[in-house]
């Protein structure tokens, strides 16, 4: 099946400054891809190149099966919410969406119907005849998402859609993102700083750093690959806590053991140096040999945030 987005050796340069370098990835149809990276990593540049706003300096790409040489055709098939997009203050939300619908080829009558439907979908029906100047930031972002859906796109690019929103606004926007994929079957590329968003919504993640691809994969793949678990949480019976601490303290690979908070008998085991999923094996064997029953055990793996920091700080 043709990927929804495919990039091969994509590069973008401004004079001597390299904004994107040899970016190669693909996104399957219907996927929600998170694009992560620190400031200046090239996320917005990548989106602008893929949506034909900026010309690529090198490489090739295709969107919805349309090659990069047919920019106007790509624009008909994508919807974009740019980062920090502006809105005309003196237009109403309805007027704004009608205008863009007409720019995408809708007649006056169908543009009106479409605008009403989209405003309902993003929860702005009641404010459709209000001037955009009176919209809150969250409302403007929802209006921007509605505008990105005007042409019923196959691929939707959302650049920092929750930027500047309060938690409630962020939740609303993320819910919309989920609906876009669920109800429309569109492919979504979501660029964001908020790792929690990516963990909630995205099936796969790209991490960019200084214009290059630092990592690509599912959230758990990246977490596992980038950083090993550093601690474990286990529970023993209350009377065995001291014995368990003494046994584990003498095992290889374990730095120290401290009481866990919350449940009785809970212990937190800090691993010695960068561990691995098998780091606790010696400790668990020692406990078994010492006849200390383990009531529960959980290896606390590195979170996506740890993987992100590890990949972007080291580079």
């Amino acid at each position, binding site marked *: 099946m043709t990927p929804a987005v495919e990039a091969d050796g994509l590069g973008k340069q401004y004079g001597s400054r390299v904004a994107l370098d040899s970016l190669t990835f693909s996104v399957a149809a219907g996927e929600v891809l998170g694009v992560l990276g620190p400031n200046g990593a*090239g996320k917005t*540049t990548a989106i602008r190149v893929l949506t034909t706003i900026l010309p690529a300096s090198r490489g090739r790409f295709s969107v919805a099966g349309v090659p990069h040489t047919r920019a106007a055709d790509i624009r008909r098939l994508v919807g974009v919410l740019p980062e920090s997009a*502006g809105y005309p203050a003196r*237009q109403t939300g309805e007027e704004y969406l009608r205008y863009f619908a007409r720019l*995408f080829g809708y007649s006056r009558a169908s543009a009106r119907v479409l605008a009403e439907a989209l405003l309902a979908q993003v929860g702005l029906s009641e404010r459709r005849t209000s001037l955009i100047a009176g919209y809150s930031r969250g409302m403007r972002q929802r209006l921007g998402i509605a505008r990105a859906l005007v042409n*019923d796109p196959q691929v939707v690019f959302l650049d920092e859609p929750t930027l500047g929103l309060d938690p409630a606004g962020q939740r609303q926007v993320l819910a919309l993102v989920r609906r876009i994929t669920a109800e429309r079957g569109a492919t979504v590329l979501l660029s964001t700083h908020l790792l929690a968003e990516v963990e909630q919504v995205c099936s796969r993640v790209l991490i960019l750093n200084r214009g290059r691809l630092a990592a690509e994969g599912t959230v758990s793949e990246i977490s596992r690959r980038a950083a090993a678990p550093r601690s474990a949480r286990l529970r023993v019976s209350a009377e065995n806590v001291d014995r368990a601490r003494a046994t584990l303290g003498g095992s290889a690979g374990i730095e120290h053991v401290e009481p866990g908070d919350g449940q009785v008998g809970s212990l937190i085991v800090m691993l010695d140096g960068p561990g691995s999923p098998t780091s606790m094996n010696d400790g668990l064997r020692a406990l078994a040999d010492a006849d200390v029953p383990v009531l529960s055990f959980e290896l606390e793996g590195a979170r996506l945030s740890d993987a992100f920091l590890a990949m972007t700080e080291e580079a």
Partner: protein
Amino acid sequence: MAASARTMSKRHRRGWAIVGEQELRDLWLGGRGLLLALAFSVLVSVIAYLTATNQALNFLEQRESVNLTLQVAIAMGSLLALLAAADAVSGERERSTLESLLLTPVSRLDLTGGKLVAALSLWLAAFVITIPYVWFLGRGIDLVADAVITGVVVGTLLAVFLASLGIVISIFANSNRVSLSVSLFLLLAIFAPTQLPSSAQKGWAGELLLRVNPLTAGEHYAGKILVNGHSWSEDISWLISPIVAAAVFSAIAAIVGARCIRLGRGATE
């Protein structure tokens, strides 16, 4: 709404008309155009009142008053068109609304065309507002028709020239402030020859300067018809530079608009 339900209208192929219509709505229903028209009408009212109530007005001075009113309309109407055009692209850039427009299938040329239409509407409005004043001042001396026709021809040529110039500046300027400053500076430079003493305007060099400058050439042509009663063809050579300026700069605006509209130097990450 499924793609199959989309109704492709003929207007999809005339993107400039859709852009132009929305720009006109924003300009006039948004209020800015009406405020500019109001300010213009106050200016013309003051001039017309001072002229008309001058009891010592002789016949020639009445012709000159019609000419003066029309010249003010042409100058101010063209200025308004220039200022609107100077905001066309750089204003969108500053308000962060340009990117969304560039993401639509509408060509950059259509975008430029639509904005030019909106800018020229300010000239048209200024001229329409001026007609009643010209009618009042000129009806006693059978000058109304000549004044209206002269105004339409000369004013439209100059408005097209200046609006096209404004759009070109707007496309390259990174901020609205730069765009408006450069536009006003160029306008002042174009108006400067009108302030030369009459002795400097005589002679081959002075006349060449007046002929080459579209504003002074247009002003001269209108004056000869309205004040001196010349026929349309007698001084037709003075219309060459306004015609050439309008044609050349609208072509430049079309070429530049089609190829050079960018998000701007700040559009990187």
